Structure formats: C-alpha cells, structure tokens
C-alpha cells in the first residue's frame, strides 16, 4: 500500500472557488510551517469569482522543495463536480477525506486508498448557527479533520488562526470552534492515517517567512524609491500594484499632514499606464507599472518609443497563459521573446528574470537602478506561480547602496558642459547624458522624439546620423550585458548541463536531486537576465549536452540562444518545454532528460 511519507507529502484540497477555502488552506499551510516543516502551497484556480473548480496543493517537504508535485498523498474532496478526477489523482497508498454523501462506487472506488467519509454539510448545519458564516466555517471543519489525522496540536492550529485573522480575534475564535468540530468528529469516527505523517522538525525553517511574489516585487519598488506608478487591473498582476498601494499607504504618508510621498494612478488602459510612467521617468521620478501579456501588447508602441527616446521605465510582466479570456489564471513563461524585442524597429530591452520571491524583491530595486543607468525600459518577468503563490523564503536583505540615478546633468554640471549633446556617447558605453525638465539652466532643454534625432537631439533625417544612433544603441545593449544580474552557476564538472530561468528553477532543483539519485549528475546555469551574459556561452562550451528548460511550447529562450550562440554551441542544446498552464514539476524535467540520455546512449553519443 505504499511507503509511509513523513514530512514529505502533498495535500490537495479540491473545492469550488468563492467558498472561502483560501483561509483554511493558509491556516493549514501555516500550521505545518509552525511545526518546523518546510511547506510549499500552490493555488490552481479558475478565472471566475464563484462556483468553478479550484485546487489548492499544500506540499510538506523536509528537503525544502518549492515546486509543484504530481504526487497527491491526501485529498480533501469537497467538489462533487470533480470528484471522479480528484479520486484518480491520489497516489496508491494515499487517502481521501470526502463529503460523506459522495458515492464511492465504480471509478471512484479504489482499493489502494483509504477513504475518510465526513458529513461536512451535516456537521456545519448542526454546529454553525450563523447561516451566512456556514459556507466559510465548513472549510474550517476540514482543517480540524486534517489536524486530527495528521496529529497537528490544537495549539499550533490556534496560533496559525491567530496569524490568519490577526486583526479579527472574533473571527479567529469562531473558526477555532469549527476546527474543533472537525477534530472531534475525526477523533470519534475516523481510523488513524497510516501512510502519511508530520513530525516536528528543527532547523529547516528557522528565520523563514511567507510572502507572495507580487508583494515581494512591490517591496522592492518601495525600497528602490519608486514614487510614481500607473496600472490597469489584470490577473495575475493586479496584486503587485495593490500591494504597492498598501505599502505606500502604510509607510509613505506623512502622519501629520496626510501628504503622500507617491502618486499611483489607475489608468484607463495599459498603454496609458505605461505612458504615465514614461512621462514620469522622463521628468525624473522612478516609476513602474505591472501587467501581464495582454497589457504588454497594448504597451508596445510606448515601450518602443521609450527605447529610442531613451527614457527610464520599469515594467513588471506577471506572465500568464494568453491571450484574452479562458486561462488567465494559469501560469506560463510566455512573454520572453516578446518583451525582449517589444516595439518596432531594432528594439532590444533588458529583461530581468527573477526565479524566487527574494529575487523579485532584489530585481524590483535593481530594475529601477538599471532603468535610470541605461535610460531605457527594463522588464521584470515574473509569472502567476511566482507572483500569486505564497513562498517560504529567507529574510530579504536591507539595501546598503544608494539609488543609482545614472547620468543626469544638473544645472551646475551644465555650466561646465554647456555644449552637451543629449544623444552623444561621451563615455564609450553607448549611454548618453540627460537633463531633467525643470533644470534651471539655459542649456538644459532638449526636444525628445522617437526617431530622427542627432547627437544634440535636433531633428535629422540624415541616413548616416540615424545609423550612427542605431549603432550606439547596439553598443548600449552590449553594456547592458555586464550590468544586468549575472547567471547563477552550480557546477561539479558534469558533461550534462541544465539551463533554466525564472520560476522553472524550483523544479530544476528537485529534478537534479532525482537525476543524481538515478545516477546522473548535472550542472546548472540559471539565466538571470537578458541580454545574455558572456558566461552563458562559456557554460555551453563546457558541457556536451545542455538541456534548456522553460514553460512555453516553442522554447523561447532556446530560440534566443540559437540566435546568439555559434553553430557548434547550438548543436549541444536540447529544448525541454512544459506548457499545460500549471506550474512545472520535477518529473517534467527528469523523465525527458533520462529518455534523452537513453536515446543518446543508444546512438553512442553520450559519455556520462
């Protein structure tokens, strides 16, 4: 009946959205964390407000893995519509806690799992008097049932409830009552859980805390000195701006005067949003917007303009499956090649690729610096998995460096350089100097336009002048290679390399452990930004085969590598793609890598 999983199992809660199960799932997650066991929650939810299927996976993992897993050990089944498929998702030897009225027959009758029937509806009717609260408190009953089955102490649940309902002690008390209803029922009626257990751990979660990527990015913007933001609501990016608003309201309002050290505008669309932050960047404020793929489409014209007019702007793209409606609540790394060259003409933008919530925080600050240093739009590519899920992370580091405002000439500088040219490459790095509107000096002003400007920003249709400008912009892009976050390397001298970026990282971590257990040692390079650092080509040179792993169908990073690498380097690359809308798991890497090794061995091409 399967091995006993101690601190290494996944609970799947299957319910309908709008039923308030999120609080219950967070309480469970938090309770497991309080026992010292690393835990990774994943919310797979529909594009809907109420009534469609939603799943919440809570992965307890002693090794601290953060990615999704396909192995479901314990199912809480509270959605009759998905009952059959949910039963099928449970591993052999696993268990199901389900509403007792659900039929266990035919397809849903398996002899390799344990069923725990609980009359949730009945219990709620009997014990929750407040009809309006019943829906929500029913979910707390399953928390009680699971707490009893997993032997989570009530004090731990109580502490987790306290954290969840921090400002509402009354709600915490009502929820605890519901938890007790569940645990009492389980104690009296349910046999103990045999194959799954939690044992308190020490040292694995010390100092860690939960944060979602969108909030982490917002915190980066706060600490990075962003003062202007404009945005248009879009899943899964809305909570990035909403987190920024919440942080600003709490920490950037003068308590005496009520004055705000920020301005945030909900724009009429994404093109207006990016127009506002480009206007703000032009006038010298640090500004950002956040959106997802469809919004990026609308921003294209202004982003291209800002690239040629050389105006700082920071754009977070919390990627999702696109376009239009259908799967906006599913994740994807779908915008890499799109954002890299967004705009018409020869546009290339720095694109930061954070893989963790910590890096989202760091990249928020780094992007604001880089945008001003490079005088161009900078993208930060997050995704729904990273942005909207809660992640356990080490504390964020307090920034020690001042803002890098880049090459700005003030009035006193202009007196020494009255003949400055807005688009002149003085330093050989392709980055010109700029002045801000409002600079009180007769030589400060210049005329900003997209194309057709010479070194002094004067209108010019001269072909040589324009080509010279394009060549300088190419030089500037080369400078960006050295200024963007550099790749992260883990190498032990294997002939096999894995190359990935963004949230795919977490599946790579587990996959490499599994491959090692299967006898295959791998090296790992994680790309942290575009343009690609020189180290990427060097890594490919050092490996016989490099698996490029990403979450899109067409292999977008693979495509960029094929553009930039030499033919003999390209020949070493193998593209591995995961693109079904749910976050990638380790087996999506392990299985094809092992298959590929077998094929290469068969062909006589593999050394390892």
């Amino acid at each position, binding site marked *: 009946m399967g091995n006993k999983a101690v601190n290494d199992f996944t609970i799947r809660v299957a319910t309908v959205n709008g039923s308030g199960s999120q609080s219950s799932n967070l309480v469970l997650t938090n309770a497991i964390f309080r026992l010292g066991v690393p835990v990774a929650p994943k919310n797979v939810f529909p594009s809907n407000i109420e009534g469609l299927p939603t799943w919440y996976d809570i992965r307890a993992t002693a090794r601290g893995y953060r990615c999704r897993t396909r192995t479901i050990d314990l199912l809480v089944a509270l959605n009759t519509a998905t009952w059959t498929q949910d039963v099928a998702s449970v591993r052999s030897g696993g268990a199901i806690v389900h509403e007792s009225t659900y039929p266990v027959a035919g397809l849903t009758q398996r002899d390799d799992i344990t069923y725990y029937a609980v009359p949730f509806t009945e219990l709620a009717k009997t014990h929750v008097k407040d009809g309006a609260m019943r829906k929500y408190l029913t979910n707390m009953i399953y928390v009680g049932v699971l707490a009893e089955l997993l032997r989570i102490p009530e004090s731990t649940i109580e502490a987790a409830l306290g954290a969840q309902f921090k400002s509402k002690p009354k709600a915490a008390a009502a929820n605890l009552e519901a938890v007790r209803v569940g645990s009492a029922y389980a104690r009296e009626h349910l046999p103990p859980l045999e194959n799954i257990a939690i044992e308190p751990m020490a040292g694995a979660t010390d100092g*860690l*805390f939960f944060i979602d990527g969108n909030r982490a990015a917002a*915190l980066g913007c*706060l*600490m990075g*000195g962003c*003062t*202007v933001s*404009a945005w248009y609501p879009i899943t899964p990016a809305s909570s990035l701006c909403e987190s920024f608003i919440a*942080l600003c309201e709490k*920490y*950037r309002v003068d308590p005496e005067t*009520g*004055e*705000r*050290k*920020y*301005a*945030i*505008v909900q*724009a*009429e*669309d994404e*093109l*207006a949003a*990016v*127009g*506002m932050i*480009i*206007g*703000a*960047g*032009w*006038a*010298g*404020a640090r*500004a950002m917007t956040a959106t997802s793929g469809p919004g990026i489409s609308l921003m294209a*014209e*202004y982003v291209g*303009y800002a690239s040629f007019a050389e105006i700082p702007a920071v754009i977070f793209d919390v990627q999702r499956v696109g376009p239009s409606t259908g799967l906006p609540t599913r994740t994807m790394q779908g915008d890499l090649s799109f954002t890299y060259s967004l705009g018409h003409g020869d546009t290339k933008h720095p694109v930061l690729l954070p893989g963790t919530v910590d890096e989202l*925080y760091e990249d928020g600050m780094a992007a604001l610096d880089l945008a001003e240093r490079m005088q161009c739009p900078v993208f930060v590519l997050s995704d729904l998995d990273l942005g909207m899920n809660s992640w356990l*992370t*080490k*504390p*964020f580091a*307090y920034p020690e460096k*001042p*803002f890098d405002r880049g090459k700005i000439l003030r009035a006193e500088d202009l007196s020494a350089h009255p003949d400055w040219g807005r688009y002149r490459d003085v330093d050989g790095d392709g980055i010109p100097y700029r002045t*801000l*509107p*409002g*600079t*009180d000096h*007769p030589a400060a*002003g210049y*005329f*900003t*336009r*997209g194309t057709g400007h010479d070194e002094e920003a004067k*209108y010019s249709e001269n072909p040589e002048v324009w080509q010279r400008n394009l060549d300088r912009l190419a030089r500037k892009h080369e400078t960006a290679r050295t200024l963007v976050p550099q790749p992260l390397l883990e190498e032990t001298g294997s002939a096999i390399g894995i190359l990935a970026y963004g949230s795919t990282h977490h599946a790579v971590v587990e996959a490499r452990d599994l491959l090692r257990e299967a006898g295959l040692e791998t090296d790992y390079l994680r790309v942290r930004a575009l343009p690609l650092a020189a180290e990427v080509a060097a890594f490919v040179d050092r490996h016989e085969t490099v698996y490029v792993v990403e979450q899109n169908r067409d292999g977008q990073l693979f495509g960029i590598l094929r553009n930039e690498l030499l033919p003999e380097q390209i020949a070493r690359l193998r593209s591995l793609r995961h693109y079904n809308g749910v976050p990638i798991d380790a087996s999506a890497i392990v299985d094809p890598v092992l298959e590929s090794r077998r094929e290469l061995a068969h062909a006589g091409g593999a050394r390892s």
Partner: protein
Amino acid sequence: MTAAAQSLNIIGLAREVYKGSPTTLCAGCGHNSITNHLIKALYEYGVPPHRLAKMSGIGCSSKTPAYFVDRAHGFNGLHGRMPSAATGAKLANRELMVLGISGDGDTASIGLGQYCHMIRRNVDMTYIVENNGVYGLTKGQFSATADVGSTLKHGGSNAYTTIDVCGLAIELGATFVARSFSGDGKQLVPLLEAAFAHRGTAILDVISPCVTFNDHEGSTKSYAYVKEHDVLVNAPDFIPAGKEIVVDYEPGTVQDVELDDGSHLLLRKLERDYDATDRLGALRTIHESRTRGELVTGLLFVSGDEPDLCERERMPARPLRNFAEGDLRLDRATFAKIAGGA
C-alpha cells in the same frame, strides 16, 4: 542698449527667448499663427522656460512645440497618447508648467480615451487642440471633428456626426474650456494666459484652418467659413496677478473670473447674456449654436472649485522626483518587520 533689448517681461526675459526653430509647416497654416500667439502669451505671462514642459502627440499640430521656447524640454510622443505622458511628467514634478499641443485627429480619434481621462483627472495643464477637421500629415482624410456634410478638397462628404471636443470636455467635468480661432489673437492670447493661470486641465479648442487640405468652399474649418460663422460669447481681457483692474465697464456687462494664481479674466459680454460658470448653459449654447451652423468662441466654461490631480492625490509641494533614499526607504526596524527579519 537698444529699445528692443530693454523690452523684457516680468521675469526679465526678452521675447526672443520664447522662440523656437523655424516652422516646417505650410505657409499660411493656422498652426503657425497659434504658435505666434503662444509665444506672445508665454512671454507676456512670464513663463520661466525651464519650467515649461512642451508635450505633444503626432500630427502637424504636434510638430509645433519645436517652434517655440527652444530652451524648454519638449516631448513629442505617440499619436493620441500625449495626455498620459503629460500626466506622468506632472506627477513626477508638479512644479512643471505642462503645455500639451494636440490636433483634432490626435485628440478626437486615436486619442479620445486619453483626452477623456485626462479631463476626468483634472491634470493641471494647458491642452490645446489645433483643430482643422482634417488629417494633414497623411494628406487630407476627414477627422472626427469634421462637421456633417462638410466636404473634402478632392470630393467626398462627411456623413458622420462630429465630436465637439468642447462639449465633450464640459460634459466630462472639465474645469476650463475655451474655443478660439487661430486668426483671432486678440481673443486667443488672453485665453491662453488664463489657461496658464488656471489650476487643472484647461482645454483650448482652436479652429486652425488647413490651407492645403481644408480651406475650400464646403469646408466648415476654412478661414472664410470661420470668419463668417464665428459667434463670440464673450471678449476676454487678461489682468495679471497683482495688477489693478482699471478697466471701466458698465455694471452687468462684464463677468470677472478670478483665476488660481490671483490673476483675473474679464469677460466682456457680447450679444447675449452668457454665464461662463454655468455648465449646463454652456452645453446648451454649444449644442444650439452647432445646430444653427454657428461656431461659438470665447471662454465657454470655467470652474475654480475642483481639486486637480496632484491635490486629489494629496501630493506634497516638493516634486516627487526630488525625494531620495532617506525619504523613501523604510528604516531597518520597520523593514525587518515586513521582510522577514524580525
């Protein structure tokens, strides 16, 4: 010193400072007249060039910021999307005097959304529509401000209802709406100065004939048509802040509008008893005049009571772009509380 050199404005600058590069528009273009009136108004009002931010979209009109105040920063952005950039610039540095130059295509077609939302937000800026009812740079297509029945130079009549950018602005809650004519500097210059003085979005719809594509018989935006159908609702006289009002008018013949910087716009009433602070009355007048084929000009509506975007957002007087690490970063203890360190 020559007499000309001694002629300086209230901040000690010569009129020369307010000039720009030579125009590249057609000879006789209404836009060139507007540029000249703007130079006069900016000079007379005493706008510090370094504080001026010249914003524009795309089109003949949007090229004109290159033709005045060379010293100021200019932003020639995207077609119809200047209001968003102007909004951002104002948020970054509210000390800037933002002047947006647009056209009828730029405002009423591709940019209608941003135009409406700029007005809703009451962004503190002057927004000029150089309105000729036709696309010039792309050689003579109708714009959305063309009147029903007006004709193109090479044939074709406009079948679609016109978008009246003044009526629309007033409906949307605009706080300053004027209409004028590129050929009437006497009316336009004081209106421009009043627009500079107004806190909030000041809309100036300036009919500006296109001599190349829309100045023929059958056009309702030609010099001849405008001269014939122009009905002035009031005659403006701008009195700068601190200057005594000495004009002697008969009681009841002048509406005195006090502007946000302490200046006054005296509106001499003409044929009818027009109240520029009556929003519904303004809408009615605009609508009825259009129905009669008339073009009402003058200060159509003004309201000084609405907060502008920066006030509504409770922004400090100090420009946001000047805030530094010490103002914006959390201290270590507060940071630790929310970033996992406590």
